[in-house]
Every structure is written in C-alpha cells, then in structure tokens.
C-alpha cells in the first residue's frame, strides 16, 4: 500500500474529516432520493453544494483523486440542477457508486494509505452521463485544457495585478462601501486591499479562489471580494482575486502568509487603505467609473478596464454592504454546538450511575437510623440532606441521559440504500417509507440496533415481498411497500418493519418446522397460530426454499431475537396471509439506568425491569388452578399462567451456602413473613441435594400466601411467583463479566443500595423459555 501525504496538519485533517463526513453523509442520504424527487430544488441544490464543497476541501488538502471524483459527480448534479438531465436508475447507480468511492477515499485520509479502489470506471461513467446529456465535461487536472477554454464567466483580465494606481482605481468601491471602510479605519483597525494573482492556466481557479476566501476569512474580516463567494461557487472566477480585508495591524503578516501558501498563487500584494486614499480625487472622479455612473448623458463610453470588470460584477457591486457585512458576521459567529467525544459522554455516565447507587444507599441509611433512633434532629437533617442529594442526582441523571439521546435518524439513514440494493439484486420493486426518524433514544441502544433492523428489512424484502408478477397476479401493485417506523411508547421506543407482502401462513410454518425436525408433529398440532408464527425464531428455521445470499447468511431470526433481547427488548410479529407482516421491536430508551422491581428469591434480591411489570399480586396458594399440566391463577376473569421464578432461573442448583455467609444474614428477613418462608429455608437445606428445594416448591402448603409479579412481553402475559416483594428502585445496569459468557435469562447485574450485587432478570428470554418448555412438555 502506498503511503499518502496530505497537505494539512493532523489538526486540519480532523477538521477536514468532520466536514467531509457531513458532506458524504448528505450525499449518501440524499442522492438516493434524486430518483424520485429530482424536481425538488432544495434537495438538488443541497446535493450540488455538498459535492462542490467536498471538491474544494479535498483539493485543499491535496487529495486529487477525491477532487476528481467529486468534480465528476458535481458536473452531473449541476446538469440535474439545471434541468438538463433526468436522474434515471442507471444514473443514480453511477452516482451511488461514486459515493462508495468517496467513502473509500475518505478512509485514505484516515489511514494515510492509498486504497486499491479503482475510480476510473466511476469517473468515466459520470463523464459519459454528462456528455450524453449534452453537457461539456469541465477540464480536470491531467486532461489537456480545451483550446481557448476559459471557464464560463471567467474574468476577462489575464494580465498580472496592476499594483500601481490609486486603490480605488484598482478596486472600485461604492460610496457606502467607502463609508464602511472609513468607519473601520476610524475605529482603529486596519483595512487592506489584497490582490492575488493565480497562475492563469491553473485548472483549479475556482477551488483556489474558494480556498483563498475561506482561509482569509479566518485571519481577517472580508468586507468585499471579487469574485464574491457566490461567484466562486458558481465558478465565475478569473486568475485574479481582490479582497478588501479588515483586521488588527498585526494581521497583515498573517494575511500575506495565508495568501502566499495557497497553491498556484504567483503574486500577492497587500496595500493598506488610508482615510486620504478613500477621498476620491477630482481626477479619479472625472476619469473613473464614478462619472460613468452619474453621467447618463455623457457621450463617451467608459474607456478603461474597470468598466469592463464592472459589467461583469454588477450583481455584487450593487449589493448593499450591510448585507455583505452580515454575511461576514454569520461566517465568524461562534458555533454554539460543541462536539464531544462519545467516550467522554460514556465516562460521564459512570459516575452518575455510582451517584444513583449512593443516593439509594443514603436514603436507606436515613430510614434505618430513623427506625433505630426515632425522632432526632440529626436524623431529620440527614433525611433532608439525603432528599436534596436525591433531587440533584435525579436532575443530573436526567440531563446526562438527555445529552446521550440521539435521533434514530443516524441509523435509519443507512437503510434506503440497503433496501434499494437488495431489491435490485432480488428483482423486486420496493417503495421504502421511513417514518419517525426524529425519534430519540440513548446512544448505547442506537449503536446496537442496526443489525437487528437490517435483518428484519432483509427478511421483509427477501421473504415478505413477492416478485412483481406474483403481486400483479394477486391484484396488488407491482411495487411492494416496506415501511420502517419508530415512535415512543412510555419509556420505550418501538421500531416497526412492515411489508405488504405475502404474510406468513401458520400451517406452512408448522409443516416446515416438522420437516426440519425442529418440532414433532404432535407439538405442531397443539400449537396455536401465534406460536406457529414464532417458529421463525427457532434456531435453524428459514422459510425460504433455498438460501439466498440476502437473508441466509447463517444468521437466522433466532439470532435477531437474541440480540434484541440482549438489549432488554423484545420482538413481536403481526401477520396476515396475503396482506403482509409487521415486526414490532420494543426497546428501552436507555440501557444504563432503569427502574426495577426488587423481589426476593431464596434469600437473595433479584431485579425485574419495571418495563415488563404489569402489577404485583398476593394470592393464597389454594387459588392456584392447574390447567392441563400448567399452573395458573385467575386475574379479573382472565387466566394468568403461573411460573415459579425460582424454577425458571434454575435457582435450586445454586443453593449452596455462599462462602462464609451466615444463613441469618440475609437482609430479606426484616422484610417480614413472606421473605423468610422458603427463602431462609432454602438457605439452610443447601448442603444436601439440589432437587430438594424443587420438591419443596412443588408441595407448597395450601394456605401459604404467595407473591406474584404479573409481567408482560408483547401480548404474552405471565405470573411469576416470587418469595417476597422488596420494593421499586432505580438501578444501574452493569454487564455480566465477560468471563461468565452469555448467560441466558440474565440481563445484567446491579449493585443495590445496601451494597449487595443483584441479578437483573431478562424477562423476555425467560418467558420464551417457558413457552418452549410448555410446548415440549
């Protein structure tokens, strides 16, 4: 790999990358829209501007390949903008290939190594598009300049800068502009006329001019330039640039230096304005454009070059200086957004998490002291302080969380391209609709959701949508519609992937699962439609007759679901044969701090995320019904399947005494009767067999009070029997140590206010476990 060198410092490159990323992202997101919305002027203008800016900035750091490619793309955009070219699918393909090239070239700036991407086909294709569209492809470096080919609108003046003559002759100013310069001078600042000559045959005049104006605006205030920045953008440039620039006296050196280092600059001159030089001498007024402007009845045409320049620059010269001043002000205004390294945001989250834990601890301590000491001034003071700390922590937490919230747009924006490419590969027609991309969620979630969504989209295109002819035969429009939407629902974000394709047939899914030996015929017969549809989440299941390179990359829907559950989310399916399918993914807004219900099991506290909790209930053991072989309770006329959370978590296997832990130390004991029954007993019979406690659970005394947490995942509800309810609290989720591997059924761990480590139950995955076990039973 060839090493690359760029014409910029490391700091400059960082800035360059940040800017280039914005432009490339814009191109990436918007070029694909050209196909349909090419008549949308602001869209086309935005794309053109992005390509143009990128061209300028890549040339600035000496990235010629990128400049060349963006130039080619810009030419196409230019023709679209002028209405000379209609972006067909093929043209958009070429442009997208160009965007891919840009991404590769952008990488070069990071790695400083030349990538092996061959751009010549891309550039050639784009050039063909321009030429076939009747346009002329502007010269690029390496191509011989067309004979006599001045850029359209290029300044007519080819000679070197006339560094003689009065300043006003060299660069005429309107009376109000003169007043502005005078005012600046009177305020104590300096004003100069800067004249820059470029190599007349430079192929980069527009870029150099752009670069000059850009760089100069960093060292001084540009009061007036020729060409103006609008003209530079429109490539109406010549080999000469003039600027009235203001600044402190010390700025002179910086201004000259800035101008001199720009490539292709052959000559610069910097002349200060003085108050005297701005008072037009009678001679100048007589000969110059001053008279031409006021002498309507003057018989002589203006004989001097300034008049020639004047005609070309009339638009800019008639621009009131107030507006020009405003433009300068806008450009130099301090940006009010601060870019922060995401790592810093993450680092900020950790202490806030610790603070939340300590707040909980403080509150618990205050409570404890109050119980022990009764009314006491110190206790009151502590209570007050702890409440105050609590409030501040809440505010801080909320604010930090808000900073971390990002619109889901950054993820969604990748998908139009993906959908388009996939549909093209599979010969399907797709209208892709995105809704709700402004919906915000925590960074930690955003980073991890794109894979699951990509799989759902692939699945929708590959398996969901029919081929155009099939759709026509079914009386549907040839183009299938895939809708990706996002919205907030309480503390969750819901992401829906919906297609209007063939839908899923439960009978076929069952048959397929049986033939693949995923389930037995007997199990299949017992399955209801919902369970049948969820078969697609079983490992090794794929509804396509053959594996395509689109969906069947060894990653099945089982992995999709596992990944979503890892984010404490869940996925549900709605489907109707012939009408389509909708996948709903529900995720918590954040993965860092959540509200949880604490329950006691076997003398330990476990956390259940509140997001899954419907309500908590107290039941007599005798109210438990047995339906078929499963236990259930009746809740307001509905049957709620009942499962022991102990059994579900396979707790009995864990009931060996923790090293050195006295059995009585379990803090749940103070929580009253419910906590001690079963719980402490479990702690004591640990020594012998694991099966014993299972038995104990099975033969529970009939009159025993039992506690049930009713949970819901999607439309599945279940009652989880626990030993005791401890309370609701805010918890900071910590991941399980890598050393423990991927333990199913556990969403993570947390440290409670009393310092104990508690396991956070992964309710969706536990419920799936129940469903699968009951099917098998």
């Amino acid at each position, binding site marked *: 790999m060839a090493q690359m060198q760029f014409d910029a410092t490391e700091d400059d490159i960082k800035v360059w990358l940040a800017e280039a990323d914005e432009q490339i992202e814009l191109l990436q997101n918007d070029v694909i829209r050209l196909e349909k919305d090419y008549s949308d002027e602001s869209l086309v203008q935005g794309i053109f501007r992005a390509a143009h800016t990128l061209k300028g900035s890549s040339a600035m750091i000496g990235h010629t390949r990128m400049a060349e490619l963006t130039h080619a793309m810009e030419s196409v955009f230019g023709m679209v903008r002028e209405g000379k070219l209609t972006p067909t699918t093929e043209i958009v393909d070429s442009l997208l290939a160009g965007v891919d090239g840009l991404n590769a070239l952008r990488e070069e700036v990071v790695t400083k190594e030349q990538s092996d991407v061959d751009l010549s086909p891309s550039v050639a294709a784009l050039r063909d598009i321009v030429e076939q569209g009747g346009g002329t492809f502007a010269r690029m470096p390496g191509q011989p300049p067309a004979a006599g080919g001045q850029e359209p609108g290029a300044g007519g003046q080819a000679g070197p800068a006339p560094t003689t003559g009065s300043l006003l002759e060299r660069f005429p100013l309107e009376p109000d502009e003169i007043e502005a310069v005078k005012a600046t001078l009177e305020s104590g600042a300096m004003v100069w006329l800067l004249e820059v000559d470029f190599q007349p045959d430079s192929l980069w005049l527009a870029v150099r001019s752009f670069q000059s104006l850009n760089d100069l605006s960093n060292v001084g205030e540009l009061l007036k330039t020729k060409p103006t920045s609008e003209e530079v953008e429109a490539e109406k440039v010549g080999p000469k640039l003039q600027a009235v620039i203001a600044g402190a006296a010390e700025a002179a050196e910086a201004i000259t230096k800035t101008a001199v280092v720009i490539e292709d600059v052959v000559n610069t001159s910097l002349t200060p304005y003085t108050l005297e030089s701005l008072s037009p001498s009678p001679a100048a007024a007589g000969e110059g454009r001053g008279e031409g402007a006021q002498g309507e009845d003057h018989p002589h045409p203006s004989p001097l070059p300034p008049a020639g320049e004047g005609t070309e620059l009339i638009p800019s010269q008639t621009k009131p200086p107030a507006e020009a001043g405003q433009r300068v002000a806008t450009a130099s205004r301090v940006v009010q957004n601060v870019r922060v390294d995401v790592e810093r945001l993450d680092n900020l989250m950790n202490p806030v998490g610790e603070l939340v834990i300590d707040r909980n601890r403080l509150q618990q301590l205050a409570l404890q002291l109050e119980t022990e000491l009764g009314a006491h001034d110190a206790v009151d003071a502590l209570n007050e302080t702890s409440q105050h700390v609590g409030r501040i922590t809440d505010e801080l937490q909320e604010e930090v969380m808000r900073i971390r919230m990002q619109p889901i747009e950054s993820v969604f924006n990748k998908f139009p391209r993906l959908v388009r490419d996939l549909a093209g590969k599979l010969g399907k027609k797709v209208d892709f609709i995105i809704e709700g991309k402004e919906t915000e969620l925590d960074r930690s979630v955003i980073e991890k959701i794109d894979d699951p969504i990509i799989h759902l989209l692939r699945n929708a295109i590959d398996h969901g949508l029919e081929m155009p002819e099939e759709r026509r035969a079914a009386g549907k429009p040839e183009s299938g519609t895939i809708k990706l939407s996002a919205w907030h629902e309480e503390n969750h974000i819901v992401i829906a992937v919906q297609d209007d394709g063939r839908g899923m047939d439960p009978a076929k899914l069952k048959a397929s699962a049986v033939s693949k030996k995923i389930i037995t015929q007997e199990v299949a017969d017992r399955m209801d439609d919902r369970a049948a549809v969820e078969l697609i989440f079983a490992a090794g299941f794929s509804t396509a007759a053959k594996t395509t390179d689109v969906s069947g990359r060894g990653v099945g829907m*089982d992995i999709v679901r596992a990944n979503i559950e890892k984010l404490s989310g869940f996925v549900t399916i709605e489907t109707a044969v012939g009408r389509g399918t909708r996948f709903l993914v529900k995720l918590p807004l954040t993965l860092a701090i959540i509200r949880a219900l604490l329950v006691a099991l076997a003398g330990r506290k476990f956390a259940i995320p509140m997001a899954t909790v419907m309500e908590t209930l107290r039941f007599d053991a005798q109210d438990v019904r047995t339906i078929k072989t499963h236990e259930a309770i009746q809740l307001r006329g509905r049957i709620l399947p009942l499962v022991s959370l102990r059994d579900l978590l396979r707790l009995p296997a864990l009931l060996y005494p*923790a090293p050195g832990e006295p059995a009585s130390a379990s803090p749940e004991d103070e929580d009253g009767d419910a906590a001690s029954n079963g719980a402490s007993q479990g702690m004591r019979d640990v020594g012998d067999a694991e099966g014993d406690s299972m038995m104990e659970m099975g033969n529970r005394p009939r009159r025993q009070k039992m506690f049930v947490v009713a949970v819901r995942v999607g439309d599945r509800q279940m009652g989880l029997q626990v030993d005791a309810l401890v309370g609701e609290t805010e918890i900071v989720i910590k991941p399980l*140590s890598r*050393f*423990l*591997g991927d333990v*199913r059924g556990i969403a993570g761990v947390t440290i409670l206010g009393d310092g104990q*480590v508690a396991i956070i139950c992964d309710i969706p995955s536990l419920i799936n476990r129940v469903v699968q076990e009951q099917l098998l039973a």
Partner: protein
Amino acid sequence: MAVDFQQVVVFELSAETYALDILHVHEIIRVQPVTPVPGAPEYIEGLINLRGRVVPIVDLRKRFGLRARPIGDRSRIIVVQVSDDILGIVVDAVSEVITVAPEFVEPAARVVTGLDAEYIRTIAKVEGHLVAVLNPEKILEYSDSEADEVLMLGPGE
C-alpha cells in the same frame, strides 16, 4: 538485573502450593458472601461488590477438578487482574510473598502437578519445594464449550 527477579504470591489450594505473579494480583481480601449467578458455569461461585465493581469469584478447584474443601478461617480471595478483566480466586490460604531468582524458575512443561499444564506458566523452586506459578490469562480465558453445556435450555437451542 533486578528485573529478572520475580515476586510471587504463594497460596494453598487443596493441599498443594501454587503461586501467582504479584503483577497480576490486584489485592487479597477475606472471603465474603457472593451473589450466585443462575445459569453460569459451575466453577463460578458468584459475584461480589468490590468497592462498586462487580467481580466474579471463581472456585479454582471446580475449574481444575480438584477435591473440594470447606471455607476456613484462612481462606482468602485473591483478586487477579489481567488487562481490563478482574476476577477473584478462592484459595485455602495465602502463605507469603517471595522473590524468586531467575535460576530457580523453569518452564512448566517438564513438571507434573495436579493441574493441567496449560494453566501453569512456570515452576519455581522455593525452599526446596516446587511451586507452580499460574498463568492468569489462561485461568481468565472464558471457555465457550463449558458455558454452552450449562446453558442448554429448552428445545431449539
């Protein structure tokens, strides 16, 4: 050269003597209650809260298939750190910290101990005894197959 001398923490486990390079030892703490992790590999005793950090505790005897021993007064947890991972190891007793001269250290392969040779980095000769210096990276290595066994749940998984 001083750098060639190795400082090791010597400890007892099922009547055998082992050691760990002191550079890997974060701290030594008393045995404390753990929070068991349902579904985790059997040799994971559970989790403890070490000043706000959740640390898994490993029973090396279970990991190595040695004879179990009850927790006694001299039992300790050696907290081991390898790069960013941190882990507690339950041992029967921590005896001493000693400095071993390079000429008393040999590669592991030539000596037979109660442990698989892969867990042992070197063998040090200490006061006439042979002490196996463990390889913390290897102990920390998470084994997929072991975990999968424990995790086999329900049909289709």
